[in-house]
């Protein structure tokens, strides 16, 4: 159980961090000043969420280490004490448990918007459930995050409609984005081992139960955007992120994000 809770918390932390880091790549490159700031704000919200989860995960890890010695831990053997920074900057790709949709490349504005919309609607329904977690800390983080995500969802939904029902070019681009990002949506609703165990204890959210609500929301927005909801059975869904199996993109993200701490351990500024 401690290992499951640690893995689960890390999954939530990694998911927010990697999405936040990806979105932060738009900082200074947004299509216009207003949207550059908007998406940077969202990136910062997500990185803030990840900090809360990492701090909690670090506490859990250190508690386990104290009580059993470090022999039984499958991760962080090389670290004396876990911190939010060590968890973010000193774990390798195979240890990251983020959803794959957070790590795929940004592409153009349409692709970034669409994946953010898929992700934000998932987070919106997810946090609405996590606030009832029997784990008080996770519930508290969920409550704080939900306010932020409510805005992310509103902002990204409106952009999906704007692009889908916009010009010929914006419609063409978001259609392409739909093809590229859709295969990464299935994983959000597949419970993995640690989630199944924790769901029984009312700690984790049973993500497969969120799928219908999510589908309804997405269908409605896509319809408003004059886009067709993809016929699901025919599309292969990518999975693996939650258990550490990633696309080729994650390594590049970590290389950039972790370089400084790897090259100059303990460096601060």
């Amino acid at each position, binding site marked *: 159980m401690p290992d499951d809770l640690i893995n689960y918390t890390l999954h939530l932390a990694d998911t927010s961090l990697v999405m936040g880091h990806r979105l932060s790549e738009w900082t200074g490159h947004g299509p*216009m*000043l*207003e*949207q550059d*700031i*908007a998406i940077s*704000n969202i990136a910062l919200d997500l990185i803030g969420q990840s900090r809360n989860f990492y701090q909690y995960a670090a506490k859990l890890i250190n508690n386990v280490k104290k009580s059993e010695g470090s022999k039984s831990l499958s991760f962080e053997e090389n670290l004396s004490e876990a911190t939010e920074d060590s968890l973010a900057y000193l774990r390798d790709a195979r240890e990251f448990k983020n959803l794959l949709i957070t790590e795929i490349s940004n592409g153009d504005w349409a692709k970034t918007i669409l994946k953010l919309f898929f992700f934000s609607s998932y987070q919106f329904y997810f946090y609405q459930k996590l606030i009832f977690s029997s784990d008080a800390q996770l519930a508290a983080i969920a409550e704080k995050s939900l306010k932020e995500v409510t*805005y992310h969802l*509103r*902002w990204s939904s*409106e952009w999906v409609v*704007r692009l889908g029902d916009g010009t010929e070019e914006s419609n063409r681009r978001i259609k392409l984005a739909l093809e590229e990002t859709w295969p990464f949506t299935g994983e959000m609703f597949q419970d993995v081992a640690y989630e199944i165990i924790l769901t029984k204890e009312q700690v984790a959210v049973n993500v497969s139960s969120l799928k219908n609500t999510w589908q309804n929301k997405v269908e409605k927005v896509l319809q408003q955007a004059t886009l067709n909801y993809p016929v699901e059975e025919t599309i292969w869904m990518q999975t693996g992120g939650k258990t550490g199996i990633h696309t080729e993109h994650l390594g590049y993200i970590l290389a950039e994000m972790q370089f400084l701490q790897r090259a100059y351990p303990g460096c601060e500024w």
Partner: protein
Amino acid sequence: MNNDEPLWEVFIRSKQGLDHKHVGSLHAADAQMAIENARDVYTRRMEGVSIWVVESKNIHSSNPDDAASMYDPANDKVYRHPTFYNLPDELKHM
């Protein structure tokens, strides 16, 4: 930068404030987007709790060339200030 979206003026009311104050302008396609842009650009440091936006073209202003005839005549009308009243001693902070 190519920006076809119209310009909007943004007014923010702070938590303690009673009035909306002009804080700047931004580009947006419609009123809703203008409010969201204003939220993202002008309230990220807790500057406000309420936003007004108005399309800049709807704001009409006085002509600076008329300044002399518009404002100078008020210069020597000190009697328009309520400073010629004798205030009762009980009144503080005036």
